[in-house]
Protein backbone atom coordinates (compact mmCIF):
# COMPACT_ATOMS: atom_id res chain seq x y z
CA UNK A 1 0.00 0.00 0.00
CA UNK A 2 1.21 3.54 -0.67
CA UNK A 3 2.16 5.70 2.31
CA UNK A 4 -0.56 7.40 4.39
CA UNK A 5 -1.37 10.87 3.11
CA UNK A 6 -2.02 14.25 4.73
CA UNK A 7 -4.24 16.44 2.58
CA UNK A 8 -4.82 20.09 3.53
CA UNK A 9 -8.21 21.36 2.34
CA UNK A 10 -8.49 24.94 1.11
CA UNK A 11 -11.97 26.41 0.91
CA UNK A 12 -12.13 28.93 -1.89
CA UNK A 13 -14.70 31.36 -3.27
CA UNK A 14 -14.26 33.96 -5.97
CA UNK A 15 -10.61 33.04 -6.38
CA UNK A 16 -9.69 33.58 -2.70
CA UNK A 17 -9.25 31.33 0.32
CA UNK A 18 -12.20 31.78 2.66
CA UNK A 19 -12.80 30.57 6.15
CA UNK A 20 -15.96 30.28 8.15
CA UNK A 21 -17.93 27.88 10.26
CA UNK A 22 -19.79 25.30 8.19
CA UNK A 23 -19.67 27.49 5.11
CA UNK A 24 -21.34 30.42 6.86
CA UNK A 25 -19.84 33.74 7.84
CA UNK A 26 -17.11 33.43 5.23
CA UNK A 27 -14.17 35.80 5.40
CA UNK A 28 -11.10 36.25 3.27
CA UNK A 29 -8.05 34.24 4.33
CA UNK A 30 -5.62 34.81 1.51
CA UNK A 31 -4.25 33.74 -1.84
CA UNK A 32 -5.04 30.08 -2.64
CA UNK A 33 -2.01 29.59 -4.89
CA UNK A 34 0.47 30.95 -2.35
CA UNK A 35 -1.15 28.99 0.48
CA UNK A 36 -1.17 25.78 -1.56
CA UNK A 37 2.50 26.25 -2.45
CA UNK A 38 3.33 26.86 1.21
CA UNK A 39 1.49 23.69 2.26
CA UNK A 40 3.39 21.81 -0.43
CA UNK A 41 6.68 23.16 0.93
CA UNK A 42 5.57 22.12 4.43
CA UNK A 43 5.17 18.52 3.29
CA UNK A 44 1.55 18.16 2.15
CA UNK A 45 1.02 14.95 0.18
CA UNK A 46 -1.87 16.35 -1.86
CA UNK A 47 -4.17 19.37 -1.76
CA UNK A 48 -7.92 19.74 -2.06
CA UNK A 49 -9.43 22.99 -3.34
CA UNK A 50 -13.10 23.15 -2.50
CA UNK A 51 -15.17 25.90 -4.09
CA UNK A 52 -17.69 26.54 -1.33
CA UNK A 53 -19.73 28.91 -3.49
CA UNK A 54 -19.69 26.63 -6.56
CA UNK A 55 -21.69 29.01 -8.72
CA UNK A 56 -21.76 29.05 -12.50
CA UNK A 57 -20.55 32.66 -12.40
CA UNK A 58 -17.55 31.60 -10.34
CA UNK A 59 -16.43 28.93 -12.82
CA UNK A 60 -13.96 31.05 -14.84
CA UNK A 61 -12.22 32.20 -11.65
CA UNK A 62 -12.00 28.61 -10.43
CA UNK A 63 -10.57 27.39 -13.76
CA UNK A 64 -8.00 30.18 -13.70
CA UNK A 65 -7.09 29.23 -10.15
CA UNK A 66 -6.62 25.58 -11.15
CA UNK A 67 -4.25 26.63 -13.92
CA UNK A 68 -2.19 28.78 -11.56
CA UNK A 69 -1.97 26.02 -8.96
CA UNK A 70 -0.88 23.50 -11.60
CA UNK A 71 1.93 25.81 -12.70
CA UNK A 72 3.15 26.65 -9.23
CA UNK A 73 2.62 23.47 -7.20
CA UNK A 74 4.29 20.12 -7.94
CA UNK A 75 2.09 17.85 -5.80
CA UNK A 76 -1.30 16.43 -6.82
CA UNK A 77 -4.49 18.35 -6.18
CA UNK A 78 -8.21 17.77 -6.32
CA UNK A 79 -10.87 20.34 -7.21
CA UNK A 80 -14.37 20.10 -5.84
CA UNK A 81 -17.44 22.24 -6.14
CA UNK A 82 -19.41 22.88 -9.27
CA UNK A 83 -18.66 19.73 -11.26
CA UNK A 84 -22.02 18.77 -12.76
CA UNK A 85 -20.97 17.04 -15.99
CA UNK A 86 -18.12 15.10 -17.54
CA UNK A 87 -17.34 18.19 -19.62
CA UNK A 88 -16.93 20.27 -16.41
CA UNK A 89 -14.56 17.67 -15.00
CA UNK A 90 -12.53 17.40 -18.19
CA UNK A 91 -12.08 21.19 -18.21
CA UNK A 92 -10.63 21.06 -14.68
CA UNK A 93 -8.26 18.23 -15.57
CA UNK A 94 -7.13 19.94 -18.75
CA UNK A 95 -6.47 23.07 -16.67
CA UNK A 96 -4.14 20.97 -14.52
CA UNK A 97 -6.13 19.37 -11.71
CA UNK A 98 -5.36 15.71 -11.00
CA UNK A 99 -8.78 14.74 -9.66
CA UNK A 100 -12.25 16.16 -9.36
CA UNK A 101 -14.57 15.67 -6.39
CA UNK A 102 -18.33 15.41 -6.78
CA UNK A 103 -20.92 15.44 -4.03
CA UNK A 104 -24.48 16.73 -4.50
CA UNK A 105 -24.35 16.36 -8.29
CA UNK A 106 -23.61 12.64 -7.93
CA UNK A 107 -26.45 12.21 -5.44
CA UNK A 108 -28.87 13.88 -7.82
CA UNK A 109 -27.64 11.86 -10.81
CA UNK A 110 -25.51 8.86 -9.81
CA UNK A 111 -24.82 8.03 -13.48
CA UNK A 112 -22.46 11.04 -13.45
CA UNK A 113 -19.88 8.96 -11.54
CA UNK A 114 -19.65 6.39 -14.33
CA UNK A 115 -19.48 9.09 -16.99
CA UNK A 116 -16.55 10.73 -15.19
CA UNK A 117 -14.74 7.42 -14.68
CA UNK A 118 -15.06 6.42 -18.35
CA UNK A 119 -13.73 9.76 -19.58
CA UNK A 120 -11.04 10.46 -16.98
CA UNK A 121 -10.32 7.11 -15.35
CA UNK A 122 -11.42 6.18 -11.83
CA UNK A 123 -8.17 7.47 -10.34
CA UNK A 124 -9.34 11.03 -11.13
CA UNK A 125 -12.82 10.68 -9.63
CA UNK A 126 -13.41 11.40 -5.94
CA UNK A 127 -16.90 11.05 -4.53
CA UNK A 128 -17.32 13.25 -1.46
CA UNK A 129 -19.83 12.10 1.12
CA UNK A 130 -21.06 14.23 4.04
CA UNK A 131 -22.70 12.06 6.69
CA UNK A 132 -24.54 12.74 9.96
CA UNK A 133 -25.82 9.87 12.05
CA UNK A 134 -24.75 7.54 9.25
CA UNK A 135 -27.04 9.34 6.78
CA UNK A 136 -25.77 11.13 3.68
CA UNK A 137 -26.52 14.87 3.54
CA UNK A 138 -26.32 16.90 0.35
CA UNK A 139 -25.83 20.58 -0.39
CA UNK A 140 -22.91 21.25 1.95
CA UNK A 141 -24.40 18.99 4.59
CA UNK A 142 -27.71 20.82 4.87
CA UNK A 143 -30.17 18.34 3.31
CA UNK A 144 -30.74 14.80 4.56
CA UNK A 145 -31.06 12.38 1.64
CA UNK A 146 -32.37 9.22 3.30
CA UNK A 147 -29.34 7.30 1.96
CA UNK A 148 -27.01 5.40 4.25
CA UNK A 149 -23.38 6.52 4.01
CA UNK A 150 -21.99 2.99 3.72
CA UNK A 151 -24.47 1.97 1.01
CA UNK A 152 -23.84 5.16 -0.96
CA UNK A 153 -20.07 4.73 -0.71
CA UNK A 154 -20.43 1.17 -2.04
CA UNK A 155 -22.64 2.32 -4.90
CA UNK A 156 -20.24 5.15 -5.75
CA UNK A 157 -17.28 2.76 -5.89
CA UNK A 158 -19.24 0.31 -8.04
CA UNK A 159 -20.10 3.13 -10.42
CA UNK A 160 -16.43 4.05 -10.81
CA UNK A 161 -15.39 6.35 -7.97
CA UNK A 162 -11.67 5.99 -7.38
CA UNK A 163 -11.71 7.43 -3.86
CA UNK A 164 -14.24 8.26 -1.17
CA UNK A 165 -13.79 11.54 0.72
CA UNK A 166 -15.83 10.91 3.84
CA UNK A 167 -16.72 13.84 6.07
CA UNK A 168 -18.49 13.26 9.36
CA UNK A 169 -20.76 16.22 9.97
CA UNK A 170 -21.12 14.99 13.56
CA UNK A 171 -17.38 15.20 14.16
CA UNK A 172 -16.63 18.21 11.95
CA UNK A 173 -15.52 21.23 13.93
CA UNK A 174 -15.57 19.38 17.28
CA UNK A 175 -11.79 18.84 17.39
CA UNK A 176 -12.54 15.63 19.29
CA UNK A 177 -11.20 13.32 16.61
CA UNK A 178 -12.35 11.72 13.40
CA UNK A 179 -15.50 9.57 13.37
CA UNK A 180 -13.59 6.30 13.42
CA UNK A 181 -16.66 4.08 13.54
CA UNK A 182 -18.13 5.59 10.38
CA UNK A 183 -14.74 5.74 8.65
CA UNK A 184 -14.02 2.10 9.43
CA UNK A 185 -17.47 1.01 8.24
CA UNK A 186 -16.98 2.76 4.90
CA UNK A 187 -13.34 1.65 4.50
CA UNK A 188 -14.34 -1.96 5.15
CA UNK A 189 -17.17 -1.73 2.62
CA UNK A 190 -15.32 -0.31 -0.40
CA UNK A 191 -12.27 -1.53 -2.38
CA UNK A 192 -11.03 2.01 -3.10
CA UNK A 193 -8.99 4.38 -0.90
CA UNK A 194 -10.86 6.40 1.74
CA UNK A 195 -9.98 9.93 2.88
CA UNK A 196 -11.16 10.64 6.44
CA UNK A 197 -12.43 14.14 7.13
CA UNK A 198 -13.81 16.09 10.04
CA UNK A 199 -12.92 16.36 13.70
CA UNK A 200 -9.13 16.47 13.87
CA UNK A 201 -7.92 18.29 16.97
CA UNK A 202 -4.39 16.93 17.28
CA UNK A 203 -1.79 14.53 15.99
CA UNK A 204 -3.18 11.51 17.83
CA UNK A 205 -6.54 11.96 16.12
CA UNK A 206 -4.86 11.98 12.73
CA UNK A 207 -2.66 8.99 13.61
CA UNK A 208 -5.59 6.77 14.56
CA UNK A 209 -7.59 7.90 11.51
CA UNK A 210 -4.68 6.86 9.29
CA UNK A 211 -4.89 3.34 10.72
CA UNK A 212 -8.43 3.12 9.32
CA UNK A 213 -8.31 5.35 6.22
CA UNK A 214 -5.62 5.82 3.57
CA UNK A 215 -5.53 9.60 3.92
CA UNK A 216 -6.65 12.34 6.28
CA UNK A 217 -8.12 15.65 5.20
CA UNK A 218 -6.87 18.56 7.29
CA UNK A 219 -8.97 21.70 7.49
CA UNK A 220 -9.55 23.75 10.64
CA UNK A 221 -6.68 22.06 12.51
CA UNK A 222 -4.26 23.90 10.23
CA UNK A 223 -5.91 27.34 10.47
CA UNK A 224 -4.35 28.23 7.10
CA UNK A 225 -0.92 27.94 8.75
CA UNK A 226 1.63 25.85 6.84
CA UNK A 227 3.88 25.85 9.92
CA UNK A 228 1.19 23.83 11.73
CA UNK A 229 1.34 21.21 8.96
CA UNK A 230 5.10 20.94 9.39
CA UNK A 231 4.79 20.49 13.17
CA UNK A 232 1.92 18.02 12.75
CA UNK A 233 4.06 15.91 10.43
CA UNK A 234 6.84 15.83 13.03
CA UNK A 235 4.37 14.80 15.73
CA UNK A 236 2.90 12.07 13.54
CA UNK A 237 6.35 10.69 12.73
CA UNK A 238 7.11 10.59 16.44
CA UNK A 239 3.93 8.55 16.83
CA UNK A 240 5.24 6.09 14.24
CA UNK A 241 3.14 7.13 11.24
CA UNK A 242 5.26 6.41 8.12
CA UNK A 243 4.85 9.69 6.26
CA UNK A 244 6.89 10.26 3.13
CA UNK A 245 10.16 12.12 3.18
CA UNK A 246 9.23 15.19 1.16
CA UNK A 247 12.79 16.47 0.67
Amino acid at each position, binding site marked *: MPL*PRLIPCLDVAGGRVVKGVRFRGLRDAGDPVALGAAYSDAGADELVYLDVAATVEGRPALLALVGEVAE*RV*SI*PFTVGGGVRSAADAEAFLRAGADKVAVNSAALERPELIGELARLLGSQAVVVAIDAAGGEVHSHAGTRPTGRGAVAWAQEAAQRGAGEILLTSIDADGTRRGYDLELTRAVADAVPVPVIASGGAGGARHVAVALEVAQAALLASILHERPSRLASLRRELRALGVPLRDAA
Partner: protein
Amino acid sequence: MNVAVCDYGAGNGRSVVAAFARLGASASVTDDPRAVAAADLAVLPGVGSAATAMARLRDRGLADALRARVAGGGATLGICLGLQLALESTAEDGGVDGLALLPGRAVRLREGRVPRIGWATVEPGAGAYWFAHSYAAETPAATAVSEGIVAEARAGSFVGVQFHPERSGAAGARYLATCLSRA
Protein backbone atom coordinates in the same frame (compact mmCIF):
# COMPACT_ATOMS: atom_id res chain seq x y z
CA MET B 1 16.02 22.11 -24.52
CA ASN B 2 12.73 21.63 -26.39
CA VAL B 3 10.06 19.29 -25.00
CA ALA B 4 6.93 18.26 -26.93
CA VAL B 5 4.09 16.96 -24.76
CA CYS B 6 1.60 14.95 -26.82
CA ASP B 7 -1.96 16.22 -26.57
CA TYR B 8 -4.60 13.57 -27.02
CA GLY B 9 -7.60 15.05 -25.28
CA ALA B 10 -8.14 14.27 -21.62
CA GLY B 11 -4.44 14.15 -20.70
CA ASN B 12 -2.80 16.30 -18.04
CA GLY B 13 -0.38 17.87 -20.49
CA ARG B 14 -0.49 21.24 -18.78
CA SER B 15 0.92 19.82 -15.54
CA VAL B 16 3.75 18.16 -17.47
CA VAL B 17 4.55 21.38 -19.33
CA ALA B 18 4.60 23.29 -16.04
CA ALA B 19 6.96 20.75 -14.47
CA PHE B 20 9.46 21.11 -17.32
CA ALA B 21 9.07 24.89 -17.29
CA ARG B 22 10.05 24.89 -13.59
CA LEU B 23 13.27 23.17 -14.73
CA GLY B 24 13.92 25.88 -17.31
CA ALA B 25 13.05 23.78 -20.36
CA SER B 26 10.88 25.05 -23.18
CA ALA B 27 7.90 22.70 -23.18
CA SER B 28 4.61 22.86 -25.02
CA VAL B 29 1.51 20.75 -25.54
CA THR B 30 1.05 19.72 -29.16
CA ASP B 31 -0.95 17.40 -31.38
CA ASP B 32 1.31 18.11 -34.37
CA PRO B 33 3.27 14.95 -35.36
CA ARG B 34 6.04 17.14 -36.83
CA ALA B 35 6.59 18.86 -33.49
CA VAL B 36 6.75 15.45 -31.79
CA ALA B 37 9.34 14.32 -34.35
CA ALA B 38 11.49 17.44 -33.99
CA ALA B 39 11.61 17.86 -30.19
CA ASP B 40 14.67 17.07 -28.07
CA LEU B 41 12.38 15.09 -25.76
CA ALA B 42 8.86 13.86 -26.52
CA VAL B 43 6.48 13.06 -23.67
CA LEU B 44 3.40 10.86 -23.80
CA PRO B 45 1.51 11.89 -20.66
CA GLY B 46 -1.26 9.86 -19.25
CA VAL B 47 -4.62 10.41 -17.72
CA GLY B 48 -7.82 8.98 -19.10
CA SER B 49 -9.03 5.71 -20.58
CA ALA B 50 -6.81 3.56 -22.79
CA ALA B 51 -9.25 3.01 -25.68
CA THR B 52 -10.08 6.70 -26.08
CA ALA B 53 -6.44 7.74 -25.74
CA MET B 54 -5.18 5.18 -28.28
CA ALA B 55 -7.87 6.12 -30.81
CA ARG B 56 -6.98 9.80 -30.50
CA LEU B 57 -3.24 9.09 -30.84
CA ARG B 58 -3.91 7.19 -34.09
CA ASP B 59 -6.37 9.76 -35.47
CA ARG B 60 -3.92 12.60 -34.95
CA GLY B 61 -0.96 10.78 -36.45
CA LEU B 62 0.82 10.82 -33.10
CA ALA B 63 1.04 7.03 -32.83
CA ASP B 64 3.08 6.81 -36.03
CA ALA B 65 5.15 9.84 -35.06
CA LEU B 66 6.06 8.28 -31.69
CA ARG B 67 6.99 4.92 -33.26
CA ALA B 68 9.18 6.61 -35.87
CA ARG B 69 10.77 8.79 -33.24
CA VAL B 70 11.73 5.89 -30.97
CA ALA B 71 12.93 3.82 -33.96
CA GLY B 72 15.24 6.71 -34.79
CA GLY B 73 16.64 6.88 -31.27
CA GLY B 74 14.78 10.03 -30.17
CA ALA B 75 14.41 10.37 -26.40
CA THR B 76 10.80 9.68 -25.42
CA LEU B 77 9.12 9.53 -21.99
CA GLY B 78 5.78 7.88 -21.25
CA ILE B 79 3.99 8.71 -18.01
CA CYS B 80 1.39 6.49 -16.30
CA LEU B 81 -1.12 5.68 -19.07
CA GLY B 82 1.68 6.74 -21.41
CA LEU B 83 3.72 3.78 -20.14
CA GLN B 84 0.76 1.40 -20.49
CA LEU B 85 -0.02 2.57 -24.04
CA ALA B 86 3.64 1.99 -25.00
CA LEU B 87 3.26 -1.73 -24.30
CA GLU B 88 2.01 -4.26 -26.86
CA SER B 89 -1.45 -4.25 -25.32
CA THR B 90 -3.49 -3.33 -22.26
CA ALA B 91 -6.38 -5.21 -20.67
CA GLU B 92 -8.19 -1.93 -20.03
CA ASP B 93 -11.48 -1.25 -21.86
CA GLY B 94 -11.85 -4.90 -22.88
CA GLY B 95 -8.38 -5.04 -24.47
CA VAL B 96 -6.59 -2.38 -26.50
CA ASP B 97 -3.56 -2.71 -28.79
CA GLY B 98 -0.71 -0.40 -27.74
CA LEU B 99 2.20 1.26 -29.49
CA ALA B 100 4.51 -1.73 -28.91
CA LEU B 101 7.48 0.47 -28.00
CA LEU B 102 7.96 -1.88 -25.04
CA PRO B 103 7.43 -5.65 -24.80
CA GLY B 104 4.63 -6.82 -22.51
CA ARG B 105 1.13 -5.78 -21.53
CA ALA B 106 -0.80 -3.85 -18.90
CA VAL B 107 -3.05 -5.77 -16.53
CA ARG B 108 -5.48 -4.70 -13.83
CA LEU B 109 -4.04 -4.44 -10.33
CA ARG B 110 -5.21 -7.33 -8.18
CA GLU B 111 -3.88 -6.49 -4.71
CA GLY B 112 -4.57 -3.70 -2.26
CA ARG B 113 -7.02 -0.91 -2.82
CA VAL B 114 -7.57 -0.10 -6.49
CA PRO B 115 -7.01 2.51 -7.81
CA ARG B 116 -3.59 2.53 -6.15
CA ILE B 117 -3.28 6.18 -5.17
CA GLY B 118 -0.52 7.86 -3.22
CA TRP B 119 3.19 8.13 -2.64
CA ALA B 120 5.34 5.02 -2.69
CA THR B 121 9.05 4.31 -2.79
CA VAL B 122 10.73 3.08 -5.98
CA GLU B 123 13.67 0.68 -6.09
CA PRO B 124 16.36 1.20 -7.11
CA GLY B 125 16.19 4.88 -6.29
CA ALA B 126 15.62 7.29 -3.46
CA GLY B 127 12.47 8.95 -2.24
CA ALA B 128 8.78 8.43 -2.90
CA TYR B 129 6.82 9.23 -6.05
CA TRP B 130 3.10 9.75 -6.59
CA PHE B 131 1.09 6.99 -8.23
CA ALA B 132 -2.56 6.94 -9.35
CA HIS B 133 -3.42 3.85 -11.38
CA SER B 134 -5.66 0.81 -11.73
CA TYR B 135 -3.53 -1.03 -14.30
CA ALA B 136 0.18 -1.83 -14.30
CA ALA B 137 2.78 -3.08 -16.77
CA GLU B 138 3.94 -6.68 -16.96
CA THR B 139 7.13 -6.41 -18.96
CA PRO B 140 10.61 -7.95 -19.18
CA ALA B 141 11.89 -4.40 -19.79
CA ALA B 142 11.25 -3.27 -16.18
CA THR B 143 14.11 -1.26 -14.68
CA ALA B 144 12.51 -0.22 -11.36
CA VAL B 145 9.70 -1.49 -9.15
CA SER B 146 7.45 -0.11 -6.41
CA GLU B 147 5.84 -2.58 -3.99
CA GLY B 148 6.28 -5.31 -6.61
CA ILE B 149 4.70 -3.17 -9.35
CA VAL B 150 6.62 -2.02 -12.42
CA ALA B 151 7.55 1.62 -11.79
CA GLU B 152 9.87 2.18 -14.76
CA ALA B 153 10.61 0.29 -17.99
CA ARG B 154 13.07 1.02 -20.79
CA ALA B 155 13.63 -0.12 -24.37
CA GLY B 156 15.97 1.73 -26.69
CA SER B 157 15.32 5.46 -26.41
CA PHE B 158 11.93 5.01 -24.72
CA VAL B 159 11.46 5.14 -20.97
CA GLY B 160 8.09 4.76 -19.31
CA VAL B 161 7.19 5.45 -15.69
CA GLN B 162 4.07 4.40 -13.82
CA PHE B 163 4.36 7.25 -11.32
CA HIS B 164 3.75 10.92 -12.09
CA PRO B 165 7.12 12.73 -11.93
CA GLU B 166 5.33 16.00 -12.77
CA ARG B 167 3.33 15.61 -9.55
CA SER B 168 6.02 14.09 -7.33
CA GLY B 169 7.50 17.20 -5.76
CA ALA B 170 11.27 17.49 -5.47
CA ALA B 171 11.90 13.80 -6.24
CA GLY B 172 9.85 14.06 -9.43
CA ALA B 173 11.65 17.21 -10.51
CA ARG B 174 14.98 15.43 -10.12
CA TYR B 175 13.68 12.55 -12.23
CA LEU B 176 12.58 14.90 -15.03
CA ALA B 177 15.89 16.76 -14.86
CA THR B 178 17.65 13.45 -15.45
CA CYS B 179 15.42 12.78 -18.47
CA LEU B 180 16.36 16.19 -19.88
CA SER B 181 20.06 15.60 -19.31
CA ARG B 182 19.88 12.32 -21.25
CA ALA B 183 17.86 13.73 -24.15
